């Protein structure tokens, strides 16, 4: 095997902005807010940061801004350090983390900041939808009238056909995520919803209704990485990065081996667990990429926490609530906590870090959590990043 991991890496601070419609904040303001919070938390000076990686999906389409690596470095006062923007649709944040992790693990840099930012609400919803549709195959999917909810609806319909999933269970996923989100001060939506509200909401792409779909949010998140051996200089509660793995698949759904499985997730998860030397049974909570309710069910299976075709039963039985066998999306997930696309992957890491430190709001804190997993997906599954974190 290749020399993959040179040294252990820890997260020394993690921060996120509230997600939602930040009318008064632009992309730079959001990145600045998350960055300052993280730097203050670590008690370090910006001068200590040697390298910056920023996840951002479509600054160009959303706010007419590219060149986001240098831009964020400028705004955080980090010039002249090297700074890089990475893009992998909704997995941009997860990829940024993977890149930052490699930079520290390889020994190239010690202190690395990994951010994610997206400003989505400056454009009309229809324009945002158009920007997001760039994550699927343009020539053979979007060109023929496919939309993102439509792609996931095709997966959901087939899954229902093959495994007996009912729309009620999809609704239960949304209800659970809104319940968790209601206790998260940073969530986009903090309202609880009833099963009927979710079940009888207006259709977006049948069988997916309004509550099966995540919102369009503004938001940013930033974490700071350091080699484990020096992490305690900055924090009493370093969180160890046990592994971070990434995999890819076809952009277009029509070329997939099985549309009810995200093979990229399967591959990334296998690798992440293998590298971390951790069993599924040791994981106390997971943050999965629930851009649509069906995606949460598929993620539970593809990450290996349930057999194919049976993940929905865990959701149906309520095992995915905080207090259940496998708490899923304790921050409300993309559905309730929000989905600022390029920031989401980093925001998920922030949630796991806070959970492992026992720092989240009462009611949604998983007791004595030792190991958490974050799962970030781009498009309909062409990119997946799985990161396993543990208490130091």
């Amino acid at each position: 095997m290749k020399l993959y991991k040179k040294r252990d890496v820890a997260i020394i601070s993690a921060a996120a902005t509230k997600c939602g419609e930040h009318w008064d904040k632009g992309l730079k303001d959001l990145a600045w807010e998350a960055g300052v919070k993280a730097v203050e938390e670590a008690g370090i000076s910006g001068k200590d940061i040697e390298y910056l990686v920023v996840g951002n999906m479509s600054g160009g389409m959303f706010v007419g801004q590219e060149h986001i690596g240098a831009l964020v470095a400028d705004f955080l006062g980090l010039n002249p350090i090297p700074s890089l923007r990475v893009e992998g649709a909704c997995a941009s944040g997860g990829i940024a983390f993977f890149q930052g992790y490699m930079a520290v693990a390889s020994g190239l840099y010690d202190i690395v900041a990994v951010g994610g930012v997206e400003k989505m609400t400056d454009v009309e919803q229809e324009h945002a939808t158009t920007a997001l549709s760039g994550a699927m195959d343009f020539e053979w999917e979007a060109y023929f009238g496919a939309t993102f909810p439509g792609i996931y609806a095709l997966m959901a319909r087939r899954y229902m056909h093959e495994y007996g999933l009912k729309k009620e269970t999809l609704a239960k996923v949304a209800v659970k995520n809104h319940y968790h989100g209601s206790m998260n001060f940073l969530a986009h939506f903090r309202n609880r919803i009833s099963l009927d509200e979710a079940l009888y909401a207006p259709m977006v792409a049948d069988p997916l209704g309004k509550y099966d779909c995540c919102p369009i949010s503004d938001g940013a998140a930033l974490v700071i990485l350091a080699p484990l051996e020096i992490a305690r200089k900055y924090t009493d509660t370093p969180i160890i990065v046990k592994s971070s793995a990434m995999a890819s698949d076809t952009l277009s759904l029509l070329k997939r081996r099985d549309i009810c499985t995200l093979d990229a997730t399967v591959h990334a998860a296998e690798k992440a667990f293998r590298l971390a030397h951790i069993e599924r049974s040791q994981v106390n909570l997971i943050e999965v990429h629930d851009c649509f309710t069906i995606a949460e069910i598929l993620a539970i299976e593809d990450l290996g926490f349930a057999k194919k075709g049976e993940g929905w039963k865990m959701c149906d039985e309520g095992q995915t609530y905080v207090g259940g066998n496998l708490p899923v999306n304790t921050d409300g997930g993309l559905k309730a906590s929000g989905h600022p696309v390029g920031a989401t992957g980093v925001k998920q890491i922030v949630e796991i870090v806070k959970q492992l430190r026992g720092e989240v709001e009462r009611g949604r804190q998983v007791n004595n959590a030792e190991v958490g997993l974050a799962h970030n997906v781009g498009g309909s599954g062409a990119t997946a990043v799985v990161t396993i974190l543990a208490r130091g």
Partner: protein
Amino acid sequence: MSHIAPPAHWRRAKERYRLLGSKCENCGSTFFPPTKVCPKCRRKGKIAQTEFSGKGKIYSYTIIHSAPKMFEKYTPYILALVELEEGPKVMSQIVDCKPEEVKIGMDVEACFRKLFEQDGEGVISYGFKFRPADNSWKTSY
């Protein structure tokens, strides 16, 4: 998607008009969308263009209620993954069919329709869509 320039329509027009895909003359595998390599044969593969019959079955479907601007006037419309009789799947709208009539496994056949117009003055995009297969004319008339 933002404005699509004429060459971007034109480049794929043949394939969209006639449902052209690829066939590996080495192993017989068929592909859609058209491909440049056979993933099975790799270097030994010999890729040629092939025209699909246009017959297939609905593998999965959805009814799109919320669509990008250029498809807005067609909502609600049926979007499906169609499994062609030759094997590959295509993503396509299903027309001449009510949303409540569409089913997984339904036999469909390709037809030629307008895909979208970006505005009243721009290029019109044409291509395949699918409709419920109807062979009643072979026996009833």
